[in-house]
């Protein structure tokens, strides 16, 4: 049995909104509403859903970029091999801990500082965490650039981001992420801004790195076809909640939740020989599951295939 690298329980992230300038009445947007999942070592979980469903908010809370409102997040400490809750860490421990969680952002045109050279960009994490001396750091940069396929590294180090193509920039983002040797990386649509022809080479690079360096991904995307290529398991998110989690092929072949069905039937198929699987909007299966399990919020229907039982009829119609 593999250990989990991350366990999330009942994570919530609310944003307060004020209703008008003079009103004391505050509304709440439940961007992430009570979600739970876990990722075993070396496996990847796809987080799939429409724009605005809370995917990125989840990612930012996990990476400690936005404080969560409620819930428990536990990471595996690579040294002691025990799961530690991030709430119990003091500042020093937290800083050390951040090395193990890294994030790759969506837009390689915006996530790299245009005034810094590639070398400076990749060196920054090492400087912040004060790892090694100058020559060691430089060696590390060279090594990681070679790993992500930017060879020879000497050619790339003095360049600026605008001198690189989109695919090369995303490789720099990946290099910056991996230089801390993280065990868990959150990827927020890392290939959605890239051209079709380079998308696969970036995805293959990430898969190979995960294999070689034993990294787990939380892979965020709106495209189920991409998630299928990248992930062992897929979690479907809708309106701030996870509505279905299952092993990738199981989810695609045997979806139970009406929203998952809608998502699957909206993906165009790149081959006229195949027809899309068109599902009707139908709540019978979900109702049946809810009826048999009246008290549970998530039901396991076998083979670690979980369905959420909360009422979605009003929002889905």
């Amino acid at each position, binding site marked *: 049995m593999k250990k989990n690298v991350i366990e999330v329980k009942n994570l919530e992230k609310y944003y307060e909104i004020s209703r008008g300038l003079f009103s004391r009445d505050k509304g709440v947007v439940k961007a992430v509403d009570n979600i739970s999942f876990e990722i075993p070592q070396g496996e990847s979980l796809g987080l799939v859903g*429409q*724009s605005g469903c809370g995917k990125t908010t989840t990612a930012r809370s996990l990476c400690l970029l936005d404080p969560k409102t409620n819930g428990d997040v536990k990471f595996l400490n690579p040294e002691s091999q025990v799961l530690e809750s991030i709430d119990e860490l003091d500042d020093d421990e937290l800083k050390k801990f951040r090395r193990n969680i890294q994030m790759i952002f969506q837009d390689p045109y915006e996530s790299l500082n245009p005034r810094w050279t590639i070398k400076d960009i990749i060196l920054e994490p090492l400087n912040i965490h004060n790892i090694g001396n100058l020559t060691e750091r430089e060696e590390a940069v060279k090594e990681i650039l070679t790993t992500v396929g930017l060879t020879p590294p000497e050619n790339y180090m003095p360049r600026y981001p605008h001198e690189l*193509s989109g695919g090369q920039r995303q490789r720099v983002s990946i290099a910056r992420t991996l230089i801390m040797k993280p065990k868990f990386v959150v990827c927020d649509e890392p290939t959605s801004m890239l*051209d*079709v*022809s*380079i*998308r*696969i*080479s970036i*995805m*293959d690079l990430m898969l190979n790195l995960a294999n070689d360096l034993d990294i787990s991904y939380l892979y965020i995307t*709106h*495209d*189920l*076809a*991409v998630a*299928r*290529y990248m992930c062992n398991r897929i979690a479907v998110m809708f309106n701030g909640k996870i509505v279905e989690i299952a092993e990738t*092929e199981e989810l*695609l072949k045997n979806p139970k939740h009406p929203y998952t069905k*809608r*998502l*699957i*039937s*909206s*993906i*165009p*198929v*790149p*081959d*006229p*020989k*195949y027809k*899309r*699987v068109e599902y009707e909007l139908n709540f019978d299966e979900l109702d049946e599951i809810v009826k048999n399990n009246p008290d549970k919020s998530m039901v396991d229907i076998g083979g670690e295939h979980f369905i959420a039982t909360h009422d979605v009829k009003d929002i889905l119609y």
Partner: protein
Amino acid sequence: MRKEVLVVEKLNMHYETLDGPVAAVKDVSFVLNEGESFGLVGESGCGKTSVAMSLLQLQADNAKISSGSIKLEGQELVGMTENELRAVRWDGISIVFQGAMNAWNPVAKIGEQIREAIREHRPDNTKEENTKKIEELFNIVGLDNSIMNRYPHELSGGMKQRAIIALALSCDPKVVIADEPTTALDVVIQDQILKELKKVQDLLGLSLIYISHDIAVIAEMTDNMAVMYAGSVVEMGPTASIFNKPKHAYTRLLLESTPSVVGERKKLRSLDGEPPSLINENKGCSFSPRCPEPSKECKNQELDMKLIEVTKGHWADQCCVNCG
């Protein structure tokens, strides 16, 4: 036999730059039949949008159509004066621009902007007639009439895209060019917009040119398609035929690099390298430097680019047909 609406022959377009001319469209020829959809697919910078802009002659100031002909129902568009062109744009050919987010004027109401287009082309219409027309259009694309009095920032991405389609249809054009109409949208909205476009096309009998980098969208939306690479069409024919028996190495790679939710979960192939610079005159097959299995003739750039007919209506570059 369907009627030919748009015939493009040997179209060449280049951009004048300080480094020399950039040949963005090279010898592109295709025929669009009435009521049919034609897809243009290829990676960024391959000349898809340049073709679209040449059809409407809305290209940038430094762009020049050096030769070729564009005939809309027999009427030659190349060499027309600006005034003659104004009559053809929107009445004859209209376009659904890429990125609906930025296609609207942010300080004018949606209805007013569509009204402006109609007023320009139908100066005799009364205000009531125009309002009725817009209501009709909104009905077709599935928008509520109240959207007319809204500003662009009040609409979601999908609603803006629907309104852009209504704008493109406002003067009953014969040909509509859809330039990556769903690229900025998420999958569920993309699906709605594609279905809407198909419905509109059937309803009005439009001829559609569909431009996209997403081969899955092209597969579902079009009857005929052309694959573009480095400014040239490298393969062209019925969509089903190209997907079943792709002849060009580039088409094959495009097909094998697209993930899918149906069928076997298979290893995808990546397309390494970068497209060639269009400034220099390339001899021979422009794809050969990136081709995974180039033949000897291909490598030595001995064969010139030339489309030959493989099966009926299915054309491909001769060098790849010879390769196998």
